[in-house]
């Protein structure tokens, strides 16, 4: 993606309709444009749709797709699709959580990593699979997954 990030105001301007059924699509657009759903975005959405922030947050957390923190420099997606699950993605996920000290949906305080669980990355042939900044790493196990993340950290530190 190039150019400036689309602001919430711009997104809302394109959706003059204030029906509450637009909440989910609007949240999706905001997340797509900004990478996450910020407090400010929720406040603006709330004012636009006449909904309290707590309600928007409640609805958004009901679906697993929304994040409330900006993405880290390395965004790590762990596939939990059926194929990956069968091939042991649970262990991979646990190891990554332990290494990063993060839960799904969180971003590390130093902004280096963010972690997300996805239902399926659509590359089941490579299971178990993780994806870092859009790059697929197939056939990982707990150790090799952590190794990939260590490499990212070294790369960031030497940069």
């Amino acid at each position, binding site marked *: 993606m190039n150019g400036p990030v689309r602001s919430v105001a711009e997104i809302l301007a394109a959706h003059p309709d204030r029906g509450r059924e637009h909440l989910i699509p609007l949240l999706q657009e905001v997340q797509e444009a900004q990478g996450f759903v910020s407090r400010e975005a929720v406040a603006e959405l709330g004012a636009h749709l006449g909904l*309290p922030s707590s309600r928007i947050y409640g609805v958004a957390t009901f679906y697993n797709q929304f994040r409330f923190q900006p993405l880290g420099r390395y965004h790590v997606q762990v596939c939990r699709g059926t194929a990956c699950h069968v091939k042991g993605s649970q262990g991979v996920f646990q190891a990554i959580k332990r290494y990063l000290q993060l839960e799904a949906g969180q971003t590390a305080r130093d902004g280096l990593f963010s972690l997300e669980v996805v239902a399926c990355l659509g590359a089941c042939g490579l299971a178990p699979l993780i994806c870092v900044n859009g790059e697929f790493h197939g056939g990982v196990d707990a150790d090799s997954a952590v190794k990939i993340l260590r490499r990212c950290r070294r790369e960031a530190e030497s940069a």
Partner: protein
Amino acid sequence: MPRIEANGRTLEARRGETLLETLRRGGIRVPTLCHYEGLPPTGACRLCVVEVDGLPNLVPACSYPVVEGLKVHTHSARAVNARRTIVELLLSNHPDDCLYCARHGNCRLQDLSEELGVRARRLPGTRRHLPRDVSSPAIVRDPDKCVLCGRCVRACQEVQGVAAIDMTGRGSGARVDTAFGEGLNVSSCVNCGQCVMVCPTGALTERSHLDLVEGALRDPALTVVAQVAPAVSVSLAELFGEKPGRDVDGALYALLRRLGFSRVFDTAFAADLTIMEEASELVRRLRDGGPLPMFTSCSPGWVKFVETFYPERIAHLSTCKSPQQMLGAVIKAHFAARAGLEPERVFSVAIMPCTAKKFEAQREEMLEGKLADVDAVLTTRELADLVRRRGLRLGDLAPEPADMPFGRRSGAGKLFGASGGVMEAAIRTAHHLVTGGELADLKVEAVRGLEGVKEARVRLGDLELGVAVVSGLGNARRLLQEIDAGRRDLHFVEVMSCPGGCIGGGGQPIGADPAALGARLQALYRIDGAETVRTAHANPAVRQLYAEFLGEPLGPRSHELLHTHYDARTVLR
């Protein structure tokens, strides 16, 4: 009239009612958890399920409309088993903390497990160990004890129109939370405590000041004084098993002395003081052109509501501190000096029907480099707990008067305990300020009663005022929307955060009989009616305080001690 058969008995139903309502009127109790009297059913907990002949599945009584000829079995083996399983599931990840829980002995979950004969932990489950939210000065949230009934969310959104909290997440991650899971103290919560009042468990409680107060009472270097709000004396007895509506005013002062308070004052005295200031402010605003309507400022939840949701209306709030804060201020500034005490050594405790008063006492502008007006606030419930901790009982004590110089009140001051009371008291005194005379009939019927919205036109000499009295912040929001939309006929608006006013406050007895509110209200009216002094301006103790110390209403000393200011709040709303 539809008829149904329940457990073999014929019951007359009313058209349009739910099965639960019919059963209840027929004297058949079906347990409920999420059911919220007066709001539409959500069917969230399924605890109220009953068996209906001809239907394959159990149906929730709270949301099932009655129709002619239903044959219902409320306590069939199937229905009871289903309920027991629901409760066992709730208990499976519930902490076994009853012995340490504020709701021990008054907990729906305890009642249900008792009623359904749950005697063992049959279903395995793990405690969630979610962190408690202790960020708020008024409310403590313990999500591990939450059974997700949703009643708090409904109180906050549908009754109070605040919506600080909502259901978040789903499945095993579901919980009640603020936006972004932040602490209640940085949310739009106004500390009203109505969520606490409807929570079936110990998941929501007030922030206790009991240890703080006990510590002060044991400290020989401190002189500990108490003030008691008007609504407390007509509610406390319920917590000792008595019928609602008994006034224990005198026994309460005796009790507080037994507990070790050196002086016991009546907040209703300060209510009279508030009226002197507030009625003067109203008359001044009427003469100087506003801003009108003036809003009352004695309900701290309402004040925070305006600061949070309607900051552009802050100028409409009366600058008067609430009676609690006024009395706190004159206790430290005047009583201490008179009694030869250092104000730093006076520990001032307010006993209130309210959780938001805990927040109010700690508001920044009440502290600003000064001594706090009020050091601790106990709710009506906490007072009852303190009494029990000391092995005392309410019943055995002979009545005693409150202490001077703040022990005398008018009937008007006592009326502050109910919705409409501030208005009635203010009208009595404003009439005097404008005309120099007294109202022929002191009773202002139009602003009495438990309705959430009351309006009247009132004559003060040649002025005619439009007044409105609302209780429950949802009602207040609707009135503000009308004013925003251009409504111009109102001069004075009383708002109490809690439905019914302070008698329905967030610090009051939990799980009270639904008729209790009315009984407390009538008790206040009886007290006012029987009082010889029924207007704030005729209260000799108030007059004396002005003569000796304060000077004039709205004068410089009043301004310094009895008035305050407000600030817009930038929180997620």
